[in-house]
């Protein structure tokens, strides 16, 4: 399994044609206390760069864009009861959704952990 990162502060775990998507620890710290996450429905077709989810903090609603294209196979139902998982475990139990990649070529150009850490440091 390989973990990729985007400049929009999302992570993507890729295992063959299956991917799991969430937001990074940096992103959750910037968003602040998360009170609701609106996730895509199972079966939804996501296009890279298009709106995939909405994260609501106390203060504001923020869009989360699909880092890669694909069909949603599962949304993290644990976030319905406990949206704060995104704050406490953003890169583990606080994952957002799983999808089947429709264009694995889109992974090219995403960052690995070291490149992402350097990107965050530059902000």
């Amino acid at each position, binding site marked *: 399994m390989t973990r990729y990162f985007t400049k929009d502060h999302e992570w993507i775990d890729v295992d063959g044609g299956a991917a799991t998507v969430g937001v990074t620890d940096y992103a959750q710290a910037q968003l*602040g206390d998360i009170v609701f996450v609106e996730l895509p429905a199972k079966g939804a077709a996501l296009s890279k760069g298009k709106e995939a989810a909405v994260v609501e903090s106390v203060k504001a609603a923020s869009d989360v864009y699909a880092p890669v294209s694909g069909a949603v196979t599962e949304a993290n139902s644990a976030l319905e009861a406990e949206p704060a998982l995104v704050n406490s475990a953003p890169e583990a139990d606080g994952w957002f959704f799983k999808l089947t990649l429709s264009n694995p070529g889109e992974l090219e150009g995403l960052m690995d952990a070291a490149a992402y850490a350097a990107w965050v440091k530059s902000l």
Partner: protein
Amino acid sequence: MSDDTSTEILALPLDSWHRARGGRMVAFAGYHMPIQYEGIIAEHLWVRESAGLFDVSHMGQLMLSGDDDSALEEALEALLPANIKGLAEGKQAYSLLLNEDGGALDDLMITRTPTGFYMVVNGAVKWDDIGHIREHLPDAFTMNHMEDRALLALQGPKAVDALKRVVPGADRLFFMEAGSFLWGHEPLWISRSGYTGEDGYEISAPAEHVAALADVLCAQPEVKPIGLGARDSLRLEAGLPLYGHDLDERVDPIQASLGFAVPKRRREGGFLGAARVLASIANGPPSKRVGLMVDGRMPAREGALIFAGDEQVGTVTSGGFSPSLQVPIAMGYVSPAHAALGTALEIDVRGKRLAATVTAMPFVPNTYHRPLKSDKGAAK
């Protein structure tokens, strides 16, 4: 409060104090201000159970004075719908600046002091307020914009315990009373009021000493510094309107459900904008500011449209998630036919219809320190 930003973002006297304490700074009302320290929910709940220190130095502190007290009262009553003549020394009132059409230019607090009237206005519109007051106040009166003073708010059920240790005697004030106190050699003007729905104080202090005062207050075990984020969620739970969002030039005080700010004696008019305000009282306003409890967990934010069936009947002006109640709450303007408590409505959020119910405000009961009714009777 309001949050319009101007081109140049300025630093307030506590700028480095906030940064040293880990405040995350954002531009607000033209100043760098802390949005949060440890997190909005933790800060919010801390204020509800203990006490929080807020820097509100962006707000405008104005002192209005003149040789002739009764002429100044007349001039202020021509400007404000408040009962200025009935305002005793050391008593504070909530009021609004209105334009000629009765629309709200700002909301404010006004207090009679031994030397005149002290007014606190919102930061984002203070320059416009100053121009408006200067334009309408006769030249015989002086308006001093006290830019050398900072303003702190200490809010929460334990604010009194912390403040009376630092400023003995401050515990003797009741809600909406104010007075001058000494902190060492420094003069403080302290009122028992605020914008969180909790008991608490607002403290005007010389700018050059405010960092030391903030240090002493935060050294009290009850007190933590609190950012603007929690200030917003606290005032929303308290049902208090935020200027620029829940109040603006389009609405009059009756429409904004602030009828208490137009006391009985002033309902004969004689203030700027009175024609519309009196018409709103007589005929009912075209819409009403109401509280809304939203079903589920998805917050409805400012700008969301409110529906009764297919008919759009209003708009949300503030909304968010209530940390105390753990449900989304909002306020907005709806047509009078849909403003009654308990009315079932729907709010459109990103194409979803959320069920919402018109609810009495405050959403969270306030804890203002008022005199007991029996005491009031005895005083008379």
